[in-house]
């Protein structure tokens, strides 16, 4: 369907909308994020303004604020406010790199790792305290401190110190505090696990699929990285159950990095996650940060091939859900929450504007502060564009007022982006200026040539096609995927 097929477009019937052909239907969306999937003849009537006020189509359109003169301005404002509620607060995600040292070597290493003897890349207790002081100065009432590396278990003493210092310091400011740790789990032991469970630290790991793929991509000297990780996933989940937590809500989260090798293995990857008791799978493509840049020719792939991998895996997950298996795809869940739920789940990489600085901050082992973890990784590769200060010398307000933070807030505003400004998916989408900077040399980027845009557009095309097909079981699963998982156990409130 194309606008040229419209005989006499009406300029007075419709409120501003964007359209795109998805499968056999025409998708229309508006600024507040309402959508409708129309049959081609319905779309023609809509564009020509030839719809009777009594018709069912008119009601559908008017209800969603697509008809001029029938708009409900109050609802429009409420919807836009709900989608942008994150703008009122500062960063809630605070990533602390407690060391660059890592005992595994990964082909795509996101973390710009250092060898185990590079002890100078360990965060000290003194800098850790200054980092926590900076974190607790955020205007956001909710604070998540995420331990990253390298491998955070390598510098576990400082992880413990941060937790204890933050809990104590938080007594004065009363934030809703959460701790998470991203670990390959190979250095976990009973003592560390006991401490992490007792202190309510959420644990997240990487699983790249079945053992042969995982171990090829993530090398652990003299052992199988996959066996170590899966052993501890099961142990941690058992521990959660032992202390009375509901296993459907509380379990280890795992992340996948999709390399070329993984593309034909979509079924085996989903099966691996299900067998480990994971309820979510995040089918992330490789990104251009860390080692991935150097090894790109071996692990990269055209995004068309990725989309084939993605849709095959998600179709399979939908089938499993029909059979009663609970497993969701994270990208789909993020987009569906915005599409069906009308709210922004505040996933910082797919947000408008993105979370760089104003939603997340990354603190390096040496006290340097970055707009985000991707910016921190680029610094490790020799590009310090996204460095905004130092925990010792820069005040919190100066970090937030930094010109780079301002530039990124503007560059990731989809109203300022060619393509995005007219894109049907604008209400639900987000761009990453750091990705643009790395892959295209400009924080604004050219979306037509962006691999990130290709993925976002491809996934949303797929989701709207599925919505258009209207299969009740799929719709039911999609609805479930938009339900926010309860994590009350991990929240550590503190009355001031």
């Amino acid at each position, binding site marked *: 369907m194309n606008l040229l097929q419209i005989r006499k477009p009406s300029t007075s019937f419709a409120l501003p909308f964007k359209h795109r052909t998805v499968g056999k239907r025409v998708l229309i969306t508006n600024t507040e994020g309402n959508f409708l999937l129309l049959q081609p003849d319905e779309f023609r009537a809509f564009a020509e303004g030839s719809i009777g006020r009594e018709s069912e189509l008119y009601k559908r359109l008017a209800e969603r604020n697509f008809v001029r003169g029938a708009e409900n301005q109050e609802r429009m404002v409420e919807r836009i406010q709900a989608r942008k509620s994150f703008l*009122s607060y500062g960063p809630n995600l605070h990533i602390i790199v407690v060391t660059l040292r890592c005992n595994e070597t990964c082909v795509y290493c996101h973390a710009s790792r250092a060898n185990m003897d590079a002890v100078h890349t360990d965060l000290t207790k003194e800098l850790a305290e200054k980092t926590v002081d900076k974190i607790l100065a955020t205007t956001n009432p909710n604070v998540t401190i995420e331990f990253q590396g390298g491998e955070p278990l390598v510098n576990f003493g400082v992880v413990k110190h941060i937790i204890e210092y933050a809990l104590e310091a938080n007594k004065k400011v009363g934030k809703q505090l959460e701790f998470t740790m991203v670990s390959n789990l190979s250095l976990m032991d009973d003592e560390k696990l006991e401490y992490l469970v007792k202190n309510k630290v959420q644990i997240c790991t990487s699983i790249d699929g079945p053992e042969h793929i995982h171990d090829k991509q993530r090398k652990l000297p003299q052992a199988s990285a996959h066996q170590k990780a899966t052993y501890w996933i099961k142990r941690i989940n058992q521990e959660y159950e032992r202390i009375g937590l509901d296993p459907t809500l509380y379990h280890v989260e795992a992340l996948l990095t999709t390399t070329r090798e993984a593309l034909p293995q979509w079924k085996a990857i989903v099966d691996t996650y299900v067998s480990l008791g994971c309820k979510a799978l995040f089918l992330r493509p490789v990104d251009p940060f860390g080692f991935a840049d150097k090894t790109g020719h071996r692990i990269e792939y055209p995004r068309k091939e990725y989309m084939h991998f993605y849709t095959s895996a998600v179709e399979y997950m939908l089938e499993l859900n029909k059979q009663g298996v609970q497993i969701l795809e994270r990208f789909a869940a993020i987009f569906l929450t915005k599409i069906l739920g009308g709210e922004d789940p505040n996933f910082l990489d797919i947000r408008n504007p993105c979370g760089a600085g104003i939603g997340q901050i990354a603190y390096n082992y040496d006290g340097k502060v970055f707009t985000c973890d991707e910016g921190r990784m680029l610094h490790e590769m020799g590009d310090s564009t996204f460095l905004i200060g130092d925990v010792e010398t820069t005040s919190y307000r100066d970090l937030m007022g930094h010109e780079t933070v*301002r530039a990124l807030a503007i560059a990731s505003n989809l109203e300022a982006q060619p393509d995005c400004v007219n894109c049907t998916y604008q209400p639900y989408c987000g761009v990453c200026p750091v990705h643009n900077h790395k892959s295209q040399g400009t924080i604004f980027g050219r979306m*037509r040539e962006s691999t990130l845009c290709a993925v976002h557009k491809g996934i949303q095309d797929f989701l709207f096609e599925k919505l258009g097909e209207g299969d009740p079981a799929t719709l039911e699963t999609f609805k479930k995927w938009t339900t926010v998982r309860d994590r009350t156990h991990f929240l550590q409130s503190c009355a001031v």
Partner: protein
Amino acid sequence: MPVTFDGIPGDLVEVELDRGAMSLQVDETLYPLEAVYAAAYVFIDRCYVFLDKPSEGRIRVTLSGKKAKLEGDLARETVGEFANELLSCAWRAQIARDSRATIESVTARALSGARGAPSLDELEAFDFSEEAFDDPLGIAMSWEEKYAKKKKEGAAPAEEPAKADGGAAK
């Protein structure tokens, strides 16, 4: 010796293979200068970039490879990428003007939400002295103050604002 590329207009792009550089001519009536600057800037990590004006209404952008000479596929790719970036920058400049109000309000809201109010310590450290508010045009002054001051100095009185903007007649 100048050569041309398949699919790229020869009168716009000139490539000097022996110098490892190429020049692209931009029509000033199609592309604003700000877009030419923005697009040229994107290439400074890979190329040395020179701008000049060979004739009225034309801007010439010369790109010279920093590490590898620009030739063959690399040259075609670079010039093609430059043309795409130029279009992107020109359109972005237009969009930024059209959507200015939305972009500004979202950015202002995001930054003020993130920064929060200044603390008492920060307010105390703030420089409220006269110098910080150097106001040579008298913008921060009230009309009475400015008028009285100028009168005292013997300068001609400022024009009455109501008349200047064609406002209500008395």
